[in-house]
């Protein structure tokens, strides 16, 4: 058994980290967030060739699998990059497996988004009723990156009761968007209303695709939270060495050290479970969905706790706008809710355990 990243994967991680550091440093990131600009990042991310990593070549990607996608998400979380548009596209990739023509465009941005509430486990989303003329109507609140997507993949149920996935052009006049503001400005959600919007069918097994999207969402959101937690630990440790009280750095206080050590324990556990689950889902093992569920439930809940610890270690400075901590604090608090709360994922695990 060998549990390390390959040389190639490590090189990829380092290159992406370097690129993000140069492209989206705090000052630049903040200027995007202040302006509500998500496109500049998405465009440069695609232009630099990152957006297709982890997507099979036959689907217009650059090859690799979920481990590479998790590496990407970890780095994006680490820099609080405005990555919702790319993430939404990645989650929708299985739905477009028969439409390579659309995939290349989506990966270059603007992307594709699954039309379901961002806080829901994708497989549990309520499908819209499909009219006999092939149009769709209904309102779906809080769609991840719904404001920047070019197309929506819509779970729909035909009059015969069969679940389908349908493609809707986001620019159609029957599609109405209403943006929402999130505390985490590095991601966005939008309420989407379809008023007899025309749609075309996607030739895929809808249930299987939504199940796959659920596993992917669980894993990738967890990887994002892992990256943001790592960054918060770095910030907290750095601050604890710099900040002096009673004539010594506060990092010399045992209670502060222990707080940091506890965060590290959580991060190491998160890394182990995340990459194991990524490999497991890629291999489509028998329990892979359970691994994804455990990862989402554990990692995002622990990251949310780590955020509180990091804030405590920073004291009041961590509460200010000028300090970067809040970028990551809000990032993991949203990750905890995104694609299903830990409670929702634990519920899925409990169901699988066949408890009474």
């Amino acid at each position, binding site marked *: 058994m060998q549990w390390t990243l390959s040389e190639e994967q490590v090189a990829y991680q380092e290159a992406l980290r370097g690129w993000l550091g140069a492209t989206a440093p705090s000052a630049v990131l903040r200027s995007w967030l202040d302006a509500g600009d998500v496109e500049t990042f998405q465009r440069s991310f695609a232009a630099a060739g990152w957006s297709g990593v982890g997507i099979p070549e036959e689907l217009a990607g650059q090859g690799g699998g979920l481990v590479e996608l998790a590496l990407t998400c970890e780095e994006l979380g680490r820099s609080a990059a405005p990555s919702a548009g790319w993430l939404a596209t990645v989650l929708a990739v299985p739905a477009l497996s028969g439409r390579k023509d659309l995939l290349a465009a989506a990966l270059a941005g603007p992307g594709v988004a699954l039309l379901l509430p961002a806080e829901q486990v994708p497989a549990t989303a309520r499908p819209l009723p499909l009219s006999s003329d092939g149009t769709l109507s209904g309102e779906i609140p809080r769609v991840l990156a719904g404001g920047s997507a070019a197309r929506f993949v819509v779970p729909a149920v035909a009059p015969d009761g069969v679940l389908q996935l349908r493609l809707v052009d986001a620019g159609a006049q029957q599609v109405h968007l209403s943006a929402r503001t999130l505390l985490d400005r590095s991601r966005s959600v939008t309420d989407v209303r379809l008023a007899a919007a025309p749609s075309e069918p996607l030739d895929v097994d809808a249930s299987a695709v939504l199940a796959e999207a659920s596993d992917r969402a669980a894993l990738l959101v967890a990887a994002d939270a892992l990256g943001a937690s790592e960054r918060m630990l770095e910030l907290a440790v750095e601050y604890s060495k710099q900040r002096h009280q009673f004539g010594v750095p506060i990092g010399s*206080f*045992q*209670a502060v050290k*222990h707080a940091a050590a506890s965060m590290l324990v959580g991060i190491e556990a998160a890394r182990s479970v995340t990459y194991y689950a990524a490999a497991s889902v890629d291999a489509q093992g028998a329990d892979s969905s359970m691994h994804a569920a455990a990862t989402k439930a554990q990692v995002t809940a622990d990251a949310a706790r780590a955020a509180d610890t990091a804030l405590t270690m920073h004291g009041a400075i961590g509460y200010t706008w000028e300090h970067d901590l809040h970028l990551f604090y809000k990032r993991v608090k949203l990750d905890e809710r995104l694609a299903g709360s830990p409670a929702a994922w634990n519920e899925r695990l409990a169901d699988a355990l066949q408890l009474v």
Partner: protein
Amino acid sequence: MDFELSEDQSTIRKSVAELAARFDDQYWMEKDERHEFPSEFYEAVASAGWLGLTTPEEYGGHGYGITEASLLLEEVSASGGGMNAASAIHLSIFGMHPVIVHGSDQMKKENLPRIVAGDLHVCFGVTEPGAGLDTTRITTFAKRDGSDYVVNGRKVWISKAQESEKILLLTRTAKFEDSPKKTAGLTLFFTDLNRDAVDIRPIRKMGRNAISSNELFIDDLRIPEEDRVGEEGQGFKYILDGLNPERMLIAAEALGLGRAALRRAVRYGNEREVFGRPIGMNQGLQFPLADSLAHLDAAELSLRKATWLYDQGLPCAREANTAKYLCADAGFTAADRALQTHGGMGYAEEYHVARYFREARLLRIAPISQEMVLNFLGEHVLGMPRSY
């Protein structure tokens, strides 16, 4: 609002502490190891008159309330005697409540003075293998036979049955399915624990080993009608009266145990040196102990409020349950941290915190589990649907 103890209460507290201090940790460790009832301690408490603390004066007691009883048991436990000390006297102090309220004059005259004098040991027989906290589901049956009852059944977790001459025994005189209400058909007796008809077997257990916990096999135990407490079929109600005081007293014992553990931990933290300084200088050790102090103090306040309400004749179920919950948790956490503070020595019997730890764990289970306290608070205080 007045947080001061009365003069009597302060005196009780101080005198009990002085008396209990005559029995040191060594004494309790040996009693625990030998599974031996602490007779010397019991005699000392009895001869100082404490067993009659809450018994009415006409039966030889002092007529004090639950507040005083809780102070007594807390101090006894805090002395390091823990649950071994508290359980040795607990039932004599307050367990006869149903008899005092509902028993016949004859029953009271015959028994209460003997309990006060320490000459009569008693135990409490409610729980059964098939009915723990679901009391109305007990099946031990008392069948009428002329002016007697004949009892058959099983009881479990009966503390001190080995040492007891009498038992306060809850039975069914009508089967669950034949009773109009589930709480009906239960009858309480206070009677001789006749060894010819009752086989008493101690349960091997984790701690509190100076006081036996037993399983009782009752086979045609004949009980005369005079030994019935109050009316037939009303037993559940009589027992119910005593549940809140029981929770408060257990809370007091948990609190005392937490104090004992904390005292030992602080002493060890100050004395033991590693890396050239006392280990108590480590924030990783000092903070948990300070945190336990805060939690014990807060739990103590909730207990004082609960006993005050009861003594004023006011409703106190919410407070009694809360006190039990908070004291049991604070006491156990303090014991756990005391053990951790001692490192490897905490695992050795000679430092006594292992004994406190084992006993403190019991109080998160008995007399009612923490989860059942939450059920009570959720359902009866918050008005949420019954969850079980």
